[in-house]
């Protein structure tokens, strides 16, 4: 909680630099809002291709968020509570997508699940084709968004400590019961904010999706891809859709910060 009185200890010039930093983020958004063609706004964002892209984005982001939770919770638990050789290496690899250019991630996925890929060949034989499908969109989004959930949840797990879990075990609770009734409820705020960040990251995913899934309308063309495409032909539509994306992302992040009580470390999107 901030108090109005009391010593802050921040040099004045820090405020000036901070203002520049703030402007760097806010000014471009304002510039974009200024460019919005308001009379045409509603028709622009409700065109068939726009709605298809928005719907696809929301569906795939929701799916990849679920996948992030399903895979990320065990990963975070293993990284925070486990003690095994190679743990630090595993953490480095899990966090790699945070600093990797998404297009590189897309290429890596292509050589894994693509037609000639590591697993793709076998999947092809089984009649499953992943690349350039909606599944590929979800995979690409999960690939880039998973670290956000893992980092957020691992931080929450570490700050919660394992003393409650030890007590629960001495009270006769099996490890699965401890996880379900003690660990997860304790880190729920961290899990929620991790999930929200993952959703936001999935929503904005562009490079890996384009590389691995392509840009087929209604199948793999998510909102960011649609915006990039429209920018070439119809700048007004691109700006209007960008504003929609800003609004959705803003709402999601606002929800996250409003809801979470315990702070967990938040990584920065590259």
């Amino acid at each position, binding site marked *: 909680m901030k108090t109005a009185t009391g010593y802050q200890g921040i040099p004045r010039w820090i405020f000036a630099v901070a203002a520049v930093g703030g402007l760097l983020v806010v000014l471009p958004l304002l510039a974009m809002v200024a460019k919005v063609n308001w009379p045409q706004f509603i028709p622009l964002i409700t065109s068939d291709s726009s709605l298809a892209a928005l719907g696809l984005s929301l569906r795939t982001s929701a799916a990849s968020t679920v996948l992030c939770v399903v895979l990320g919770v065990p990963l975070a638990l293993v990284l925070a509570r486990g003690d095994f050789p190679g743990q630090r290496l595993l953490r480095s690899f899990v966090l790699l997508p945070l600093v990797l250019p998404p297009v590189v991630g897309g290429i890596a996925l292509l050589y894994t699940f693509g037609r000639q890929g590591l697993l793709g060949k076998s999947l092809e034989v089984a009649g499953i084709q992943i690349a350039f499908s909606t599944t590929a969109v979800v995979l690409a989004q999960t690939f880039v968004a998973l670290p956000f959930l893992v980092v957020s949840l691992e931080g929450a797990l570490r700050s919660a400590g394992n*003393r*409650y879990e*030890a*007590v*629960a*075990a*001495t*009270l*006769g*609770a*099996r*490890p699965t*019961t*401890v996880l379900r*009734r*003690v660990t997860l*409820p*304790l880190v*729920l705020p961290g899990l929620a904010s991790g999930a929200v960040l993952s959703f936001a990251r999935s929503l904005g995913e562009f490079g890996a999706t384009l590389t691995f899934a392509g840009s087929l309308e209604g199948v793999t063309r998510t909102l960011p891809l649609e915006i990039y495409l429209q920018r070439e032909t119809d700048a007004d539509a691109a700006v209007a859709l960008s504003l929609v994306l800003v609004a959705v992302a803003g709402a999601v992040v606002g929800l996250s910060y409003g809801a979470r009580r315990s702070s967990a470390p938040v990584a920065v999107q590259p």
Partner: protein
Amino acid sequence: MSFELQASLRARNFDMSLSLRDGETVAILGPNGAGKSTLLGVVAGLLRPDSGAARIGDKELFNLDGGSHHWSPPHQRGTALLAQEALLFPHLNALDNVAFGPRSAGASTAAAREAARHWLTEVDALPLAHRKPAQLSGGQAQRIAVARALAAEPALLLLDEPMAALDIHAAPLLRRVLKRVLKDRKAIIVTHDVLDAYMLADRVIVVEQGCIAEEGPTRQVLERPRSQFAAGLAGLNLVSGIITKDGITTPDGRVFAGQHDPDWSPVPGQAGVAAFPPSSVSVFLGDVHGSPRNAFPVTVTDLEPHGDQIRVRACAGALAQALSADITPAASADLGLVPGMDVRFVVKSALVSVYPA
């Protein structure tokens, strides 16, 4: 069902063996870092010793000796742990916290809550059933933690300084609750407080440096301490040596005259201790006239208020041992005592108890 344990953990310099009869409460006393919490961790299954074995009745907790290594995880041991802090699950209200053990044992929600109400009543906390832990005071939370531990129906209850984090107003109530619920219950209570040992325990074990220094019935250990730690708790000075006809002889040849324990016929030549309260010690400057026994030179190390007296702590050079004397503030002022002064302690031999170590 009795409890038996033998375990050693080299990394913590820990090596102990102990046993509890059915319905017996044992207090573990000892300085910080003596291995008290390590003992509880090993019993609860939270710490794995290098070797040893433990069982409750015919149920094996662990057996790391011999070929077949057996290690029960904490949830299969029936050894509920109550820590210094209540550690109530913050997302559950008091009732569901207490119902946690029965629920984990497979009881239905209704049955578990019924049991929880019973145990909340036992610790006088039923009116708090629907409060969240954040809405409870430290004493209330700790009472509910007691109920939660008991509701798990542990075969052995482990208490790790349950009163240490409470303020002085909350501790007496919890102590009364514990006295009631620990009656006829197998429990190990780690404590710093002599009062806990007197009120709650049938037997005391004093641990020092990872080993058992002495053990025995509470009253006996505190009235006839054999370890420096127990003597400190009982507020007694303790000097060890070899028993003679009149008292004991310290390793540096000093003779301590005292009264032999009437319940015991002394065997000269046996190792023994002389215990005497600080109030039996007088302080003199320079040589003492007449021929008092038990007079020896010491160097004052500290002066501190103790009740309405001044406690003079001093080091008896050759004994390399701390001794204390209680004198009146007036006497202290008359003598002009300051740390570093060389004075003489004179102990009334009638107040020195001598007994075997």
